[in-house]
């Protein structure tokens, strides 16, 4: 007897399955934003008046100054470094290209407390100067200032611009610079009139990432007591115990972030138009002795300030406090961190794989748009995400209590609040992109005709999954898991605001210790984070090596 298939399959679910799943995921990841926007619209008047009179003006001023400052400094650092390493050959260039990515391993809040500790009145630099070189004292800048925050955050995240600008310069190929030279354009003229304009979509893409990170930063500005929107949201929630005030502040930030997100989408599309495909890479010009030394010195100086000095200082502090800190409570922190990271990574990767599968066979515009929206969470500042999630949970709690009440089941309100599941859910929303992109990249190798070919050879279902699908997307799943895990481990504000009692992580502990000025005690957890954070950067440089 030959097996038969049903004469009629359910066509609606079959064709719309991908779209329905994608929309469900998008609704989940966007729910915090939707709740914040709604609460922003129905603002409580008194709170709003208070906020507008006493809080908002300073928050707006500080946030704008910070964003403008960081974007400017990272643009100068990132573009100049990318220009030197992309177009010129000098001693140590290959090393510098890789080393200059390492600062990404240092979370901005760690960078912040290191430099505060270093340059503060009681820090080693000022102490040394007071004792030996009193004449230098007036020239040591005051670190606890807008200038200080801008520099510290810039040092931590300039590699985004460096990385993107390098890609932009590389995408342009030899013929462009040669065409410019054949028309007798000088090097500087070529840089400003050919190279930078052509790499603009990449450079702007990098700057927008920087802008997102700056708007989202909570830890670094807290160390400096520099109030921005993210700390405003936190203080409104923690200090006034007002979820409404927090939501209203958050709604303003959400609107700004949405505009930035839209801009990023625009520049990503532009990159596609500008990329003329395969061509030979730019021939680097070999610098002379003096020029080469200067270029190497500049790259080395930035590397030292952004990585070597901070890590060295951390090592010194960690050693001095090693015996007190290395103990049961440290391992408890590490265990908590990895437990939460594991749960978050698991959930994120499940959703990432489902989303990638949903978009696999359907290529229509509406599914693509829903998928893009599902991934939007990476643009959300952590404090905003946490406040949004508190709103969502409060609503769910209410409706659960009332609907169960109708059924005659009495439940105490607030049962979902403080649940351990909240954090993995938030991590999923924020880091879905990191997990999705590698899986999706591998999924494009898995064409629909492969399923059909396997089926004709009598391999389908579980066999197909085991013999074809898993081997093909396994690498993407591993890469995605590592990236997500590292991001979660470095994540601080969401964990700080939503963790259940007793679930301190490395990042939260660093925040608590540094807000009390205990630099030495924070050093060991911070070094641990940096070590973990270097994993994806090493992966990234390996991938770059394969490509070139």
């Amino acid at each position: 007897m030959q097996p038969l298939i049903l004469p009629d399959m359910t066509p609606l679910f079959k064709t719309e399955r991908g779209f329905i799943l994608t929309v469900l995921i998008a609704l989940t990841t966007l729910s915090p934003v939707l709740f914040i926007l709604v609460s922003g619209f129905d603002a409580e008047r008194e709170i709003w008046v208070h906020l507008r009179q006493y809080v908002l003006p300073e928050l707006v001023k500080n946030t704008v100054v910070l964003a403008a400052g960081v974007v400017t400094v990272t643009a100068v650092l990132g573009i100049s470094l990318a220009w030197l390493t992309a177009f010129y050959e000098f001693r140590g260039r290959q090393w510098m290209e890789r080393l200059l990515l390492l600062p990404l391993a240092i979370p901005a809040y760690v960078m912040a407390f290191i430099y505060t500790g270093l340059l503060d009145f009681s820090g080693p630099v000022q102490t040394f100067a007071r004792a030996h070189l009193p004449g230098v004292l007036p020239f040591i800048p005051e670190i606890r200032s807008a200038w200080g925050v801008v520099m510290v955050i810039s040092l931590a995240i300039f590699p985004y611009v460096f990385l993107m600008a390098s890609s932009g310069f590389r995408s342009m190929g030899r013929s462009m610079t040669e065409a410019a030279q054949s028309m007798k354009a000088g090097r500087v003229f070529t840089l400003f009139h050919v190279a930078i304009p052509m790499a603009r979509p990449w450079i702007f893409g990098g700057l927008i990432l920087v802008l997102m990170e700056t708007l989202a930063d909570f830890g670094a500005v807290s160390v400096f007591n520099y109030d921005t929107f993210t700390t405003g949201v936190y203080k409104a929630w923690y200090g006034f115990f007002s979820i409404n005030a927090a939501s209203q502040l958050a709604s303003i930030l959400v609107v700004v972030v949405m505009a930035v997100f839209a801009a990023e989408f625009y520049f990503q599309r532009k990159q596609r138009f500008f990329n003329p495909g395969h061509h030979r890479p730019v021939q680097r010009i070999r610098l002379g002795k003096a020029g080469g030394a200067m270029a190497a010195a500049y790259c080395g100086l930035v590397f030292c300030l952004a990585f070597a000095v901070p890590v060295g200082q951390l090592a010194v502090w960690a050693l001095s406090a090693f015996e007190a800190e290395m103990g049961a409570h440290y391992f408890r922190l590490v265990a908590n961190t990895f437990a939460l990271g594991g749960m978050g990574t698991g959930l994120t990767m499940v959703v990432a794989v489902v989303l990638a599968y949903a978009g696999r066979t359907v290529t229509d515009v509406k599914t693509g748009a829903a998928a893009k929206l599902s991934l939007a969470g990476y643009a959300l500042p952590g404090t905003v995400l946490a406040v949004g999630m508190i709103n969502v949970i409060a609503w769910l709690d209410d409706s659960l209590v009332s609907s169960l009440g109708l059924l005659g089941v009495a439940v105490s309100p607030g049962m979902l609040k403080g649940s351990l599941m909240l954090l993995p859910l938030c991590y999923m929303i924020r880091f879905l992109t990191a997990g999705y992109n590698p899986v999706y990249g591998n999924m494009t190798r898995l064409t629909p005709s492969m399923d059909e070919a396997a089926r004709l050879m009598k391999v389908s279902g579980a066999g197909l999954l085991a013999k074809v699908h898993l081997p093909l997307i396994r690498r993407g799943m591993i890469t995605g898991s590592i990236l997500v895990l590292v991001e979660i481990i470095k994540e601080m504000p969401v964990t700080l605001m939503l963790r259940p009692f007793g679930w301190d992580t490395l990042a939260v502990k660093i925040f608590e210790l540094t807000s009390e000025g205990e630099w030495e005690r924070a050093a060991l957890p911070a070094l641990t984070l940096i070590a973990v954070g270097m994993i994806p950067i090493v992966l990234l440089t390996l991938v770059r090596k394969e490509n070139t």
Partner: protein
Amino acid sequence: MSLSIRRIHKRHKKDKVVARDISFSIDDGKLGALIGPSGCGKTTLLRMIAGFERPDAGTIRICGTEVFSPSAALSPEHRKTGMVFQDYALFPHLTVLENICFGPETPGKRSLEKLVSVTGLSGTEKKYPHELSGGQQQRVALARAMAPKPGLLLMDEPFSNLDITLRETLSQEVGIILKEYGITGLLVTHNQQEAFAMADHIGVMKDGKLLQWDSADRLYYHPNCREVAAFVGEGAFIKGQVSRSGRVETEIGSFDLPENHNYGSSDLLMFIRPEDVYVHRSGDDGASGGHFVKARLISSHFRGPGRLHTFEMPSGERLSCLDPCPAPLRPGLDYGISICNPKVSLFDCRSEGDS
């Protein structure tokens, strides 16, 4: 009969009919081909035979088994078909041999060795698909589809990703391999030369309709409708009228009507192939009597064997002429042209698709 298709009909959503009442069959060991412009429904028809898409009506029989009828359908893996996909669909993480032996029905050692050597894959067994050239990947796809000894081999644009020279040699070679194994096959292609080189029977499709299912020479010399005439090979249509004497009068002469014709009107279109047009060079003017007209040469270019001319007749209608003589003519001058084949194809001017 290895493949027999009866009255297959399919409508996509948005009311686009992709298969309109299609019937044809292929005998054991023969190779059929479906040609037609892109979007004509030929790939959909192939996928319905494989079982990846569902017809709305009709029946499909493969090797005597009814694999589809409106009341019951066999799933693709039980239809005894193999398929060569347009993108080859090779598994990138498996070697050539692992690709060929992918399913549970792997051939024995002997027949596997023969298959590998016949398809020209000896020496590549342990390589991965990305290490192979396009032509080699195509061979792997063919060997993989043939390995489970399918009753019917389906090929969806199998050579479209190859460059032209490779396409010609490989299509001939594949034709020989299939004949050697006695495999019944169906090929979908938009390239008629490929179909001519490989297939015993060829179907021309347009807008979901199978216009004609015939041998290559009958398609070429006896197209059953204007669309087939226009799609297969080259040629031009000129106007003609049925006269009282029962002949067709055209600008370039009068012709006999076929014996059992049933044209609806007296306005006809005559289809003329370039090789049927004869140029009267100076000296033999008027040699062939009645079928003769003066036409202006518009353009003329070298065509390997001979030259291809385009003439414009006084009425403004144009004819192309494949002239075996390589000596150039002068564009702008008038030349005498005539038709040297009395059995030209005639079509009704108004309705489409009947003869």
